[in-house]
């Protein structure tokens, strides 16, 4: 049995035949579409390394069966930068040393993009830490991650104001 689903991945409309219903979104991205930015840490929803945006919301791609996402719009870490211009969250992670080995970083960055869009943290570092708690970093880069999220949030707010003005 093979079902074909349509997905918009990083702005690219795709028609993807799924011949095995067990395929998760994470495996589809990594094994079939060559998008290896999202990482497989635990494969069980516990680490956040596989975080991507589905219809603008951050989720764990390791627990989402690809078939269930027919018609969805997916954003992965590969879809953030505009050419050579880094997304403000990516730039802030570099500026604040928000990583060491880098394995958790694509998930951290996608989670941060989701957090900023949700707009629940304000400028409170405690709320940022709590709302980033779905992303584990074995290198313990949490201090830089929190700073990066706070800074990127400010940069994005400023850009929005400029666009509105």
């Amino acid at each position, binding site marked *: 049995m093979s*079902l074909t689903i349509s997905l918009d991945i990083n702005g690219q409309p795709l028609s993807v035949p799924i011949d095995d*219903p*067990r395929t998760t979104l994470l495996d589809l991205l990594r094994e079939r579409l060559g998008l290896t930015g999202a990482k497989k840490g635990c494969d069980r929803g516990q680490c*956040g390394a596989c975080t991507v945006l589905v219809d603008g*919301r*951050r*989720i764990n791609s390791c627990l989402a069966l690809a078939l269930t996402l027919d018609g969805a719009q997916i954003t992965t870490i590969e879809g953030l930068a505009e050419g050579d211009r880094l997304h403000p969250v990516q730039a802030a992670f570099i500026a604040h040393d928000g990583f060491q080995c880098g394995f958790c970083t694509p998930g951290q960055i996608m989670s941060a993009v989701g957090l900023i869009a949700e707009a629940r943290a304000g400028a409170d570092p405690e709320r940022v830490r709590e709302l980033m708690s*779905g992303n584990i970093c074995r290198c313990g880069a949490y201090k830089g991650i929190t700073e990066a999220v706070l800074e990127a949030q400010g940069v994005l707010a400023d850009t929005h104001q400029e666009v509105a003005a």
Partner: protein
Amino acid sequence: MNRFDYVRPASIAEAFAAFQPASHYLAAGTNLVDLMKGGAARPKRLIDITRIPGLDRIEWLADGSVRIGALVRNSDLAYDERFQKSFPSVAEALLSGASPQLRNAATVGGNLMQRTRCPYFYDVASACNRRLPRSGCDAIGGENRLHAILGWSDECIATHPSDLCVPLVALDAVVEVEGPKGARELPLDELHLLPHAAPLRETALTPGELIVAVRLPAQAAAVARHARYLKVRERTSFAFAVVSVAAGLELADGKIRTARIAMGGVAAKPWRSREAEAALVGSPPTAEAFARAAEIALAEAKPSGDNAFKIELARRLVVRALSSALEGTPQAMPALPGSPIASVSGAIHAV
């Protein structure tokens, strides 16, 4: 993971038509897919209910009660302004659970129906009556410091892991169910079954029955100004409850008019203590009254293994949750929802 058929019904009627033995309904899959990866669940057919229209709404009914569709996502319910104001302990419980990513996906129906986190249930090499009837229970005599202290049996000592269910049961939530043979409703308190008969039945649902909504009566909002959900975890965040407590108070003339107390992480169901509530009604909200309520709530508790500490922990958390509720519901959701340790910054509702 085993192979399975995947079907995606466009209506409830189609979902029932697709249901066969060994079918499982699939909502977001954050619990079911996890269990399938380890082989603890092996469905022959997955029926994806997420495209059934009409089940993803929060509706306020004329009598002030609220009807929450089974497909409402955990985060959408928790952040709904009117809902958070009316039922703050439910929002706090939701936000103390799992992670933002999981809450964005997880549905209300799936949260109610999630299975135990007993590690032997997950491990297919272990004996587990809940996974394989009459195979035994490796948790008894095994690693069981987080297992049940109330309502357990020699069949099974597992707990139900949901945070959401704890305030819901304290607030008289009703579950609306539809099945191939018709619609019915039951109190949430009757949804999860204690492990008293072999073979174990986990819930009161019969094969093919689907939860379509959960309702909270208007009266449940009477405790909105004095409501907390506190959850002891083994790390600050993103962990299941060791023990949790939902507490709510309605005060009048310096006395308690209504009390709501339920505990999580202590039994195979969210555990409401109506006896402890009754003991508080009519009494002034004093430390002594709260201590007495906690004694009553845990009067029947027994360790099921290396977990006697949970009894004292639960007693203290009942007192702590009642005391926090008495201080007043925080006006903004605490930065660390459910934390019994972090202080709440910002205003609380005036008494």
